[in-house]
């Protein structure tokens, strides 16, 4: 049996394990909530991760369409980019798939000489990480952009439309609205 077939066969178990490991990157109290709470509105993080991992795994078995991968990977990264993770930790959950697969197909890999295929598959996972890293940076850049421009986008824009921009900040040097912060 080829590796792909084997993985397809064990899809449910692999995704489940992957999901478990992925949410265990959170503190244990949180992880249990993420695993248990099935309500998609009460638990958007758990839901997004579970949907995303499934979609990603399906795509790994196929041709790795960049668009499709992004559509599943982006929502997960978008969440992790604003949570209390270091950049490495934020994308780390993808590597965990290697661990899951190695453990899951250990026996067959030895018996049926699947190492070549496994190496290939793992480099697909590496590609996933590279995409994730791009997405992570995009999210962070977006956050910095929002931080820098929020005031400009709302207040400043309104003032500019009204032609009032110069009237305002220079007027009172002692108490200045926190437009620059």
């Amino acid at each position, binding site marked *: 049996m080829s590796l792909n077939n084997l993985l397809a066969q064990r899809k449910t178990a692999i995704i489940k394990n992957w999901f478990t490991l992925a949410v265990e990157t959170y*503190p244990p109290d949180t992880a249990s909530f993420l695993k248990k709470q099935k309500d998609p509105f009460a638990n*958007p993080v758990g839901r997004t991760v579970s949907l995303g991992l499934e979609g990603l795994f399906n795509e790994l078995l196929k041709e790795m369409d960049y668009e499709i991968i992004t559509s599943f990977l982006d929502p997960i990264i978008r969440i992790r980019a604003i*949570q209390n993770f270091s950049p*490495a930790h934020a994308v780390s959950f993808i*590597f965990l798939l290697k661990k899951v697969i*190695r453990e899951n197909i250990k026996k067959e890999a030895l018996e049926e000489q699947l190492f070549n295929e496994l190496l290939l598959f793992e480099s697909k996972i590496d590609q996933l990480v590279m995409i994730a890293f791009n997405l992570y940076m995009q999210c962070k850049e977006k956050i910095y952009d929002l931080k820098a421009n929020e*005031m400009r986008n709302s*207040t400043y824009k309104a003032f500019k439309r*009204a032609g009032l921009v110069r009237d305002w900040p220079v007027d009172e040097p002692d108490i200045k609205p*926190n437009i620059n912060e």
Partner: protein
Amino acid sequence: MKELPNPDEFLSKIDHKPSPTGWMDTPVEIRRGIACHAAKPDRLEYVGFPNPRDWSCFDEDWQLPENWQEILHKGFKERLDRFRSVKIFMDICVRCGACADKCHFFIGSGDPKNMPVVRAELLRSVYRNDFTTAGKILGLFGKKAKKAYGARELTLDVLKEWWYYFFQCTECRRCSVFCPYGIDTAEITIFGRELLNLIGLNIDWVAAPVAFCYRTGNHLGIQPHAYKDMMDFFTDEIEEVCGIRVKPHFMKKKADILFITPSGDVFADPGTFTCMGYMMLFHFLQEKYGLEITWSTYASEGGNFGFFTSHEMMKRLNAKMYAEAKRLGVKWILGGECGHMWRVVHQYMDTMNGPADFLEEPVNPITGTKFENARSTKMVHICEFVADLIKHGKLDLDPSRNDHLKVTFHDSCNPARGMGLLEEPRYVIKNVCNHFYEMPANTIREQTFCCGSGAGLNAGENMELRMQGALPRLNAVKYVHEKHGVNMLSCVCAIDRAAFPTALEYWLPEVDNCGVHELVANALILPGEKKRTVDLRNEPLPGMEDEDDE
């Protein structure tokens, strides 16, 4: 395969992972992106608050007064004697965990200390140590015994934890809905922040609006001439859209009604469109029914960041509403769309600054409806007012002018859980829009999710926190967006209108945000207006332009 490195193990070495033991053993780590900038000294000086100084929460030394523990202990005791709510909430929590997963910050951040029960335990642990007999007795047996009881001393680390987590709560009260004893984390946070303010610990995004509002009448520090200029500009814009020149009244003595709304709507998009909506509505009512509604630059702020500071500061800022109504000699006050403003107006204003015996019991002079529910406070919500007008057929509306919008409605926390304003805005929206879709039931009405930026947390530097907080709300919006093609998230809160555009840009850029009265004004047919080809945002109305070409 054993020798392959396990990424998870490796990462746990470089990343701090909270220990699985009790929360008290997990020291606070103040993070950038989550914490807000500290209040600048001039803000505190202006309103006479203690310990003004330049400091940062990332400093080791917070430059506290030497006897800060004593000040807090005394302040804690004083407040226990003043507020039964907190006293009871300190004693009766059984830690059943019903609230744990109800907080938008917990859901979005995954930080277990954002579980409402833990937020309250931050205070309770010190309460047990300082104010309960058991805490004192167990204290004799050492730290371990105290810890098992959940008591601990107020150390600098505990204080930092207070500061960090009381500024990660938007006082939205969602947890209080699910608590079997009604324990309200908003009360806990209000209490905690009031204590922090005793030693000069506030965030600038709260302290600055407070100082501005005290001085200029509004949070943004806009002086009267700029306020007027901005309104003049709206007048031009409105004329461009519908060919009518509205004439808003300012501080007009003996006007029928004084109108107060958050200043955010006058100075920041997309609230500005809601503000234009008010102006058009008032113009309509004046032209058609002779109703005079006046604005004021002195009382130009509906919101009240004093509420996020201390009860006293809330009262000091709120006093302007009644004072201005009295000075102008109006009959009653009409309040614009705002969240915490309405919590203050509904649940605090009359008690703090009433009785408003110089005003009349509010009656809608156009329909004759008595607003019996506002007969003491004498302040009516604009959605109550407009719903009444629509019900009596007093507005000329063309809802098809909102046909390019598929609208959903976000219940703002305070009107929902501190008032019960649920049906009025929905009634208004359904009458001015043809396409309205509700979000899932456990994310609206009394179970609504916060925008994630309330209670003064709408700063820029804590963007990650705000995005965490907005996730549950926008996740539900995403659902109706994908299911029904919803492209407009309407709301009745100025903080929402400041928070959502940013949060949507990150989470769901396909959806926009507006106030309910922007939708009203889009549909409202002003007497003598020209044919509208654009909406208030100057965006072409589909279908309308074609006819124009003919």
